[in-house]
């Protein structure tokens, strides 16, 4: 287990099982990494002691990148190659981007997820995000003294499936073992609830740099249950900057701007917004490349007026979530404020007015999400004993549906369903000998496919040829605890497994992810094979350990033959682990996983029986 141990000189060795796990808040404006040390969640700062990492990546000629403050300092100088707020582009096409004319980037016009042309080549938002995550991983590894075992990455609760998948892919490219995608308001609720031992019904109002979420949670002893969530994944502090920017352009009667000047004024707009949080007026000064001088004063009253509609826009999702939860405003016992944009006094006022109570601001709105994510990562990594941990029940934010006749949507999993969730549908063929079918999965609440978001088209092949209407194809949709969808299909009369090929509408093909993975290694000058071997070893060790403890607890559930078959697979894995062939280790891991499948099923059954022990139950 050498890979998993912390060995810092002068420190007492960490408990044998302690695993290095972090929570990462991958924000639109800033990102953070936090961990639980000696029982307390803490944000890990950079070498200069700064907790935040500006979510800005600058690509330089020759393949180098700058991330964070250095990139921020050069953004006005090199706008085309300096990517800010990349989170808004995750899982999105060029057509989805608001104010595309004000974004100083060179977009590649292609279907699917948008791409940006930079001096270092064409980059996907997933790769840009991976650069940010990589810096945070390295920061954490340096601070914790070893390779990370796992990470929880937070996403806006209102992110759709494509945006979630893009985030998870970015984590993979950054070399992280992503334990879970956690919704930001839920992460905040964990940090908040555990800090205050709160019980009852709470609303989390999370206005970040680019996204807005409103989640309603029921907190009771050891359980965080999300009852409803709503939001707007294209609404955040950035939009307030944009309003101020437009006001500047209008007031100073500026002609169309160069990308450089545009970026400069956006920076000034943001500074003015932040200044107005504690001051009555802000002066805005900028010298443009045309040597034109902009000098304006923005007062609070004007700022509130030009952003009034944005503030109101957040209240629609608030009402919707309360309705979906089957509650009234008076049922909400506390409102937790999260995200830097909630510092704006007009937001605080609007929320207080709506809920008729003062919002809760006790925790730093910039850090609370990362802290909650770190706490959850600590639980998922198995660092907390059972009984001392908690249960998290989250929901899917948008309904999943499939396209039916006439471009209509049939809902298969409604919004606010607790995840993991599943649904099966049965189809038949309409032609003799038909061996394939195709489906279109969408996400959204509207009745027409064209009004919903296309997630993926998938194609079934390998249906045994039969007469029309004779085949029975059962398609199963499964949404996992990350909110990610998978589809499987089986022909019911013959039991033949149909192969499913998924074409994500705004996703990245597996082959491209592999390429990005290779690029990121060569870029970081890491040895691809050494890395693959290290990862395979960690996986293998972890599985061996998990299997040993499962055997210790429930060996009695196995017949002697089954026990010895698992034993043989374990021995095979141990042997592979002694070698240096990562493919062989992977094969041995697969073999052991396969050998333990019935065992895993039985353990789950036994778990349920124990849960219900003492109650009268029929045969399960």
């Amino acid at each position: 287990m050498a890979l998993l141990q912390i060995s810092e000189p002068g420190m007492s060795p960490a408990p044998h099982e302690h695993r290095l796990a972090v929570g990462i808040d991958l924000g639109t404006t800033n990102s953070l990494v936090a961990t639980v040390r000696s029982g307390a969640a803490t944000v890990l700062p950079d070498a200069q002691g700064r907790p935040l990492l500006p979510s800005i990546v600058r690509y330089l000629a020759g393949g180098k990148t700058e991330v964070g403050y250095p990139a921020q300092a050069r953004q006005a100088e090199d706008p085309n190659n300096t990517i800010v707020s990349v989170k808004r582009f995750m899982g999105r096409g060029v057509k989805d981007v608001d104010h595309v004319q004000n974004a100083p980037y060179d977009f590649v016009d292609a279907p699917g997820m948008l791409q940006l042309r930079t001096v270092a080549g064409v980059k996907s938002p997933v790769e840009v995000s991976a650069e940010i995550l990589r810096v945070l991983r390295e920061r954490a590894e340096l601070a914790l003294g070893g390779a990370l075992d796992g990470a929880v990455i937070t996403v806006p609760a209102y992110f759709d499936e494509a945006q979630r998948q893009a985030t998870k892919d970015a984590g993979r490219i950054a070399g992280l073992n992503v334990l879970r995608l956690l919704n930001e308001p839920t992460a905040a609720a964990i940090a908040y609830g555990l800090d205050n031992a709160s019980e009852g019904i709470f609303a989390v109002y999370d206005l970040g740099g680019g996204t807005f979420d409103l989640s309603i949670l029921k907190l009771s002893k050891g359980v965080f249950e999300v009852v409803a969530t709503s939001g707007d994944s294209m609404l955040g502090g950035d939009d307030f900057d944009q309003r101020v920017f437009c006001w500047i352009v209008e007031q100073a009667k500026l002609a169309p701007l160069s990308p450089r000047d545009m970026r400069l004024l956006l920076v000034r707009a943001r500074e003015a917004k932040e200044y107005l949080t504690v001051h009555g007026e802000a002066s805005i000064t900028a010298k443009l490349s045309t040597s034109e001088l902009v000098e304006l004063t923005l007062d609070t009253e004007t700022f509130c007026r030009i952003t009034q509609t944005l503030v109101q826009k957040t209240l629609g999702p608030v009402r919707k979530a309360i309705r979906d939860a089957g509650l009234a405003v008076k049922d909400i016992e506390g409102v937790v404020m999260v995200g830097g944009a909630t510092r704006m006094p007009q937001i605080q006022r609007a929320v207080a007015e709506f809920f008729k109570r003062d919002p809760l601001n006790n925790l730093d709105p910039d850090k609370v999400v990362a802290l909650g994510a770190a706490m959850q990562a600590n639980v998922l990594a198995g660092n907390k004993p059972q009984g001392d941990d908690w249960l998290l029940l989250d929901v899917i934010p948008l309904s999943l549906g499939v396209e039916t006749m006439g471009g209509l949507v049939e809902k298969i999993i409604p919004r606010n369903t607790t995840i993991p969730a599943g649904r099966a549908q049965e189809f038949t063929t309409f032609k003799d000998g038909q061996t394939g079918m195709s489906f279109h999965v969408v996400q959204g609440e509207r009745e027409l496919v064209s009004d919903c978001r296309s997630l993926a088209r998938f194609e079934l092949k390998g249906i045994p040829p039969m007469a029309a209407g004779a085949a029975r194809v059962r398609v199963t949709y499964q949404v996992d605890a990350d909110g990610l969808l998978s589809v499987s299909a089986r022909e019911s009369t013959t039991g033949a497994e149909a192969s499913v090929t998924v074409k994500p509408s705004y996703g990245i093909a597996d082959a491209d992810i592999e390429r990005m993975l290779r690029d990121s290694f060569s870029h970081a000058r890491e040895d691809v094979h050494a890395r693959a071997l290290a990862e395979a070893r960690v996986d293998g060790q972890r599985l061996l350990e998990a299997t040993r403890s499962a055997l210790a607890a429930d060996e009695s559930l196995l017949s002697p033959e089954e026990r010895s078959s698992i034993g043989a697979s374990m021995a095979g894995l141990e042997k592979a682990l002694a070698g240096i062939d990562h493919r062989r280790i992977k094969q041995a891991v697969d073999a052991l996983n396969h050998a333990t499948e019935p065992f895993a099923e039985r353990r789950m059954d036994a778990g349920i029986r124990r849960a219900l022990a003492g109650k009268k139950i029929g045969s399960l």
Partner: protein
Amino acid sequence: MSRTSAAAGKALTSSRSLVGNHFELFGLQPAFALDVEALERAYREIQSRVHPDRFADAGAAERRASLQWTTRVNEAYRSLKHPVQRASHILALHGVDVAFETDTAMPQDFLVQQLELREALEEAKDASALAALQEKLAGQKQQLAHEIGEAIDRRKDYAGAAGLVRKLQFLEKLHAEIDQAYEAIE
């Protein structure tokens, strides 16, 4: 690739994915009158043992088993909490199909009542009118739920209960339309 699923295959049924006795899963007796506390307690007990968060670091086999079980438990929990689905489930256990899609005949007086509610919904232009309508609807739903309870739990009249469940489903649809109307005026 063809554009629509309709072009390639015909939907047969739109069955719920997971069958089995939901009550048994939670150690409860099948009844329309629900002991919500006992259900919630059993749900949380089970989830605390099978949820994927307990197996984030486990092998693929255990992660898969956990995902399948949690999905099943969530589905059963959701069904039992929802009156229409709970009643349908009990009827199905007794071999009675509620037939939401095929049996749409409703008694005359019920239809008249529904027509009035729908007219009121069309005329409702603000939140307070919608709230008043919702309150009226809530009363009717409660009354129907009571009748369903009597039919299922006391009289064991499952065939008779099916008609009541269809009525309740009607009211649920109206409820959803009221929610949509709220969104429209916001």
